[in-house]
């Protein structure tokens, strides 16, 4: 029983990270129907910015978090502006290849400047390094921090999407871009804003992973990125609560699979879930199936 709870706690930590990344995928897919492969590398860059802030500049955790989110926001907007906007009306495959191209560009540019070596986050001290024991269950400050920050960001996101004007614009554009434009919504700004939001969340996920797992490298985004995408599909791509749910579910499943001795197969399990979900319920857990009109 205690082991079970421990697994769930660990799963929530990992799931939080997936959920934060998945939100970016799902929002971008929802609005321009693009699997933004570069998203996972924004997360990686976020981790690197956090590293620079904390270990080179000696900043504290919170300022570093904000710096990393800010940098990623700018990066996300820039990528959309330069690489994706010219392809808005191109074929899906062209857009997807561009996304892969941007992804490779970010990875290898980082590798060029920061080398392919693994970097280690400064080890946490004092309050940040504390662990709490309840019976046999261990919770670290970092885990609490991850969970709390994730929840705060998600609530913020929900408020932005549901309550603000730009949020309404986002929902309108994702429903029907042309109609939204006719209603006087600035589609370009709205799409930029969507990238900004998603990238900020990815940046946060990057630094949180940094303090949780300590080591980072230029290709660290690839696998979590794919899994976060699986999470987004799992919950129903384009649906924000779906991405959160999917993130947590995938995180917990992954921890369980490793916890019970099949850690070598944990990635395979995630992909198997993906294929299963796609076949059984391609619209995802919270999505609606829609057919093509003839």
């Amino acid at each position, binding site marked *: 029983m205690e082991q079970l709870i421990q697994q769930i706690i660990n799963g929530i930590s990992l799931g939080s990270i997936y959920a934060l990344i998945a939100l970016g995928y799902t929002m971008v897919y929802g609005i321009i*129907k693009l*699997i933004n492969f570069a998203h996972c590398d924004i997360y990686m860059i976020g981790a690197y910015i956090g590293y620079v802030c904390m270990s080179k500049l000696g900043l504290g955790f919170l300022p570093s978090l904000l710096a990393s989110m800010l940098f990623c926001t700018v990066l996300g907007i820039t990528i959309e502006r330069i*690489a994706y906007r*010219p*392809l808005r009306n*191109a*074929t*899906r*495959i*062209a*857009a*997807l*290849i*561009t996304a*892969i*191209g*941007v*992804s*490779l*560009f970010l*990875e*290898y*540019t980082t*590798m*060029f400047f920061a080398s392919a070596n693994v970097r280690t986050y400064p080890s946490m001290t004092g309050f940040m390094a504390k662990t709490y024991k309840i019976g046999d269950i261990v919770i670290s400050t970092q885990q609490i921090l991850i969970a709390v920050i994730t929840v705060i960001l998600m609530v913020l996101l929900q408020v932005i999407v549901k309550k603000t004007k730009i949020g309404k614009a986002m929902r309108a554009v994702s429903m029907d871009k042309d109609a939204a434009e006719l209603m006087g919504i600035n589609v370009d700004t709205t799409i930029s804003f969507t990238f900004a939001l998603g990238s900020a969340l990815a940046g946060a996920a990057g630094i949180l992973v940094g303090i949780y797992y300590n080591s980072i490298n230029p290709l660290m985004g*690839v696998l979590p990125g*794919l899994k976060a*995408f*699986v999470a987004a*599909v799992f919950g129903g791509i384009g649906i924000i609560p779906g991405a959160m749910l999917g993130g947590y579910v995938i995180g917990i499943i992954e921890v369980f699979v490793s916890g019970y001795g099949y850690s*070598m*197969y944990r*990635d*395979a399990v995630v*992909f*198997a879930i*993906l*294929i299963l979900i*796609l*076949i059984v319920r*391609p619209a995802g857990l919270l999505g609606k199936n829609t057919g*093509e009109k*003839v």
Partner: protein
Amino acid sequence: MRGILNKQLTQRIIFMLLAYAIVQLLVSTNIINAYLQATLVTICINIILAVSLNLITGFTGQFSLGHAGFMSIGAYTCALITMRVPTIAGFLAGVLMGAVMAALVGFLVGLPTLRLRGDYLAIATLGMSEIIRIVFINLDSITNGAAGLNDIPRFVNWPWLYVFVAGTILLIRNLLKSSHGRACIAIREDEIAAEAMGINTTKYKVLAFIIGAFCAGIAGALYSSYFYYIKPDLFGFLKSVDILVIVVLGGLGSISGSVLAAVLLAVVSTYFQSFPEIRMILYALILVIIMIFRPQGLLGSKEISISMFNRMGKLFAFGKGEK
């Protein structure tokens, strides 16, 4: 009419023999040295991979990001067979078995996932190839896990390469010029209309996957036999992307485009061999720039054909008289 056909056929045969002979000459005079030979092999393998992926993605319109998975099955099957039977017969059996195994997996994977469209299919095939890779890593006792297989006997040389490359191109081209090939293309154009015109779309999608996987299996087998050494990570997501990039760069729906792009990318990549990071950055930039400025690829869906050269020749010969 008959005369023209025969003329075309003869020209084609001459062209093919010439291509073979020229490279053979360059190899035997050592102008293509050991180092360039590796490039040559890479080009040939990439041509097979790209042409077969083009059948799936470019002609049938089914977006696949898992071609490296099929390739890895061919590579491992052939390696395991030739390591036990290190003869030319073992090699040929290995290539054949590799192709058949890949086709089998293509079929098994294709059947359920082909209900998916577009991006969803891409992601499902990506997941599938990742699963294949992870299985190879974990089948320690057979595949030696992540460390991979070493000392695979080498049987691949230019004549064999040529046979397989020319064979793949010829068969896929022939297929596409038949009613079965047109059925595949119709699916790409409009699946609902194709189905309404009596085309069993599921059958042809699965067929495209099976033939595509079969050829990728051959490519994998040739790879393992030439480069001695394989490991699961060679056949990851990045390899699938590599193949897709060749196809898209050459033009979706253009076989000659795939061939051209495979040669072009290999040359560029060989040139930057010693700066791996810069090479990848450039590669990424080229990708983005081409997608923005020429998303249909170098040739679009057009083909370079011998008759085109004929027409060009006539144009030069007769000036503007010939229309």
